[in-house]
């Protein structure tokens, strides 16, 4: 089937099987391998994308569900070669180790900050609770998101 959608701000038309998983369409058809597949069952959050600005699991969405939506993947979050403030903060705070969870973490964090620009540490933990990280122990990730919120508030 032919689907039209906005992918990282670009009008996109694809001819794909409607029952193909969104994560496979993004990675294999669009070549956007920043979106990771961890568990494939909605448990780990590595495949997080934004659908009309809300965080979703692309392993539990089918290609047909992309139609008409505004999709943001990690590749679309930076602006013309400038890192997104969250990406910058993750680097500054050492919040990236193996990196596999990072794209999903950053997209969940960005959805959280859009909804709640001034989150407490508890809000941040709650907001990221569907994204698993097996390296960092989460502290530096929470630090990075908290620092981004502070920075946005000051600017």
């Amino acid at each position, binding site marked *: 089937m032919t689907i039209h959608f906005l992918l990282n701000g670009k009008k996109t038309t694809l001819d794909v099987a409607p029952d193909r998983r969104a994560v496979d369409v993004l990675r294999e058809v669009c070549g956007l391998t920043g979106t990771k597949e961890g568990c494939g069952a909605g*448990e780990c959050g590595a495949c997080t994308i934004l659908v009309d600005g809300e965080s*979703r699991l692309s392993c539990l969405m*089918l290609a047909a569900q992309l139609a008409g939506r505004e999709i943001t993947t990690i590749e679309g979050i930076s602006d013309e070669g400038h890192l997104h403030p969250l990406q910058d903060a993750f680097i500054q705070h050492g919040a990236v180790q193996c990196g596999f969870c990072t794209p999903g973490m950053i997209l969940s964090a960005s959805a959280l900050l859009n909804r709640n620009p001034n989150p407490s540490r508890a809000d941040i933990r709650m907001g990221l*609770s*569907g994204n698993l990280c097996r390296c960092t122990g989460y502290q530096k990730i929470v630090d990075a998101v908290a620092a981004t919120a502070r920075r946005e508030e000051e600017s």
Partner: protein
Amino acid sequence: MTQVYLPRTLAELWSYLEGKPEALVYAGGTDLLVKMRTGKVTAAPALICLERLAEIRDVRETADAIRIGAAATHAELLRHPLILTHLPVLTQALHTLGSPLIRNMGTIGGNICTASPAGDTLPPLYILRAEVELCNGETIRIMTIEEFITGPGATQLQKGELLTGVLLKKPVEYNFHHFEKVGQRKSMACAVASMAALLRLSPAGVIEAARLSWGSVGPTVVTAAVVEDALIGEKLSLETLAAAAGKIKQIVAPIDDVRATAEYRRSVSGNLLLRLLDARPPS
């Protein structure tokens, strides 16, 4: 390749279903797509996704009742002022359900139709005496959630029928709503045991009315009139709750599984009652 339909209206949905009566219906996909991937559900001739069906997604109120559209997501309900105002026990349960990602996708109708013994919205819906509205495009059936869910993963939903709404009376006679879930971690964890409670406390702290239910400790949600009767007329105290806890431990029918032993679940079922003392609203 399986066709995937995304009806925008119920009229479209009924016409798809008429053409493909064997089609599988999903909303968030957080259960069905996982089961299809693991082979528990084998390939369907077609899939119908309810995510764009605005008609059954809103929350409405009348003077004494609330109607929740079955395709409302958990996140939408968690933020909804009508739910927070009138059904705080449901809000409390939604806080513990899955993760923000799962709550953005999964729906209340999906949680009911999946009918898992560990479904987090189910204990509150049982004590709220929720009714489900089932429609096949021509006729509407309404039954209590207790009648609808017949076993683990089993419901009275018939082929060609859709759960369209959840109907609830505002529980105005209860001034203490409580839900607690015990799992192996806070997020993305199936309940080892959970308990929902609606109590009416007098100014002197006497329990005047009580409805209680337990999740994950039987094939379906467990309710127990014996336990409720043991509380009614008594002061909310550790002695009262401990006596009731002794009774519920005899009634629940838990199983051993990877998450916990039956014996542990039995203990937790009783201990969850004791927590009502800490959770009671300030008088």
